[in-house]
């Protein structure tokens, strides 16, 4: 496969950023790896000079192996018809980063969501109160260290797999196929 070229426009705008690594991906996607300190400047440059107006998403990945969070900022430019995903890694402890709300307003929602799901604090984010999990008091549930199954076992009860209603269904010729693939032995 032919190695894709870094788009020249991107190269010309971003080459001055120290330590930046630009990797072209399939189609119109480009991955950019930067130091945490440089990310706001890059988003600013992309937005101001190349029309990357649209912040599609901010996502977070918990890496327990290296004790880091990886934050991915995905922006799209209608002018360049290009998607750039900017990756930064921050230490899991204390898990703090800066908000990019002043560059892209929708960041407020993504940051609030990531704060709720991973516990990352974004300095300067307008609102980090509870978002979706309004009645949740446990740890941020998307952390790999959160044992979902243990929580479920402790909080909920299971139904017995041979209940009365199943016998009714079996009497009519239906029921669980106990011979089939994945059947409980």
């Amino acid at each position, binding site marked *: 496969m032919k190695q894709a070229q870094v788009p020249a426009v991107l190269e010309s705008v971003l080459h001055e950023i120290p330590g930046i690594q630009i990797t072209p991906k399939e189609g119109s996607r480009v991955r950019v790896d930067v130091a945490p300190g440089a990310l706001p400047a890059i988003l600013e440059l992309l937005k101001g000079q190349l029309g990357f107006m649209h912040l599609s998403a901010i996502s977070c990945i918990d890496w327990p192996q290296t004790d880091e969070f990886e934050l991915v900022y995905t922006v799209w430019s209608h002018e360049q018809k290009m998607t750039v995903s900017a990756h930064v890694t921050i230490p899991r402890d204390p898990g703090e980063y800066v908000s990019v709300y002043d560059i892209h307003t929708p960041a407020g929602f993504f940051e609030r969501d990531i704060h709720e799901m991973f516990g990352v604090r974004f300095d300067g984010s307008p609102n980090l109160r*509870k978002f979706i*999990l*309004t*009645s949740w008091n*446990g740890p941020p*549930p998307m952390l790999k260290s*959160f044992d*979902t*199954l243990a*929580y*479920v076992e402790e*909080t*909920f*009860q*299971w*139904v017995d*797999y041979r209940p009365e*209603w199943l016998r009714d*269904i079996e009497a009519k010729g239906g029921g669980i196929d106990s011979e089939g693939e994945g059947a409980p032995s």
Partner: protein
Amino acid sequence: MSDTTPVIPDQPEVCRTVDAEERGVWRRVMDRFADHCRARSLFVLHYCTGCGAIELPPTITSRFDMERVGVSPMVTPRQADILLITGYLSVKTLKRVILSYEQMQSPKYVLGFGSCTINGGMYWNSYATVKRLDQYIPADGFIAGCMPRPEAVQQVFLDLMKKIDAGQANAWQDYYLNYDRYLGNQMALFGEEWHTPVDVIAEAEHYGYVGDGTRGRFTEILDRHAAYALRDAPEDYPERGANERLLP
């Protein structure tokens, strides 16, 4: 015309006292008749929780046309007979489901649609969804499958109609008879501050379904909420603001 003043008897014979047993029989006959009629005109609350909602338009509209057997959608819980839980219930959705369920007038029927309502389905290990619908509100039937086809939905409606007609679709009475247990399960999930605007115990008294399980240690907690509402809060009552967690 007679000029004698009419004699009003002390015990008017037309108003003889009906003895309790006799009224009981009459009432049972009426109930059976009402059940028979009711089974032929059912309104399903148009409220959808999970993916399963997508199977309802074909079930209700011309392809399968549930209306030909007397089942049609209804927009408000107070006028609906059936609460169809169409799939997974997140903990937050369950609160709304309970609020809707309690607003429905008895007799009311709950049907769990899809594997998620039976045992969590494919969300069996999710922290955010409840696993068993029937722990929180009593259900009259379930449809297994992920997701069940309209034929299966039709089948459960027909089964429910048969049950109603036979006077056996009585899960709603269980909510009154064992309210304390249901409330306890709800509180285990939502916290002890959980309470709804509906006075379920008064309803249980109204319908005549107060049992041993109606009141208990969880309904006692409700009494404390009532006292709090009257500004007569016990010392150890949770801070104001604890309730903010209830509904956003």
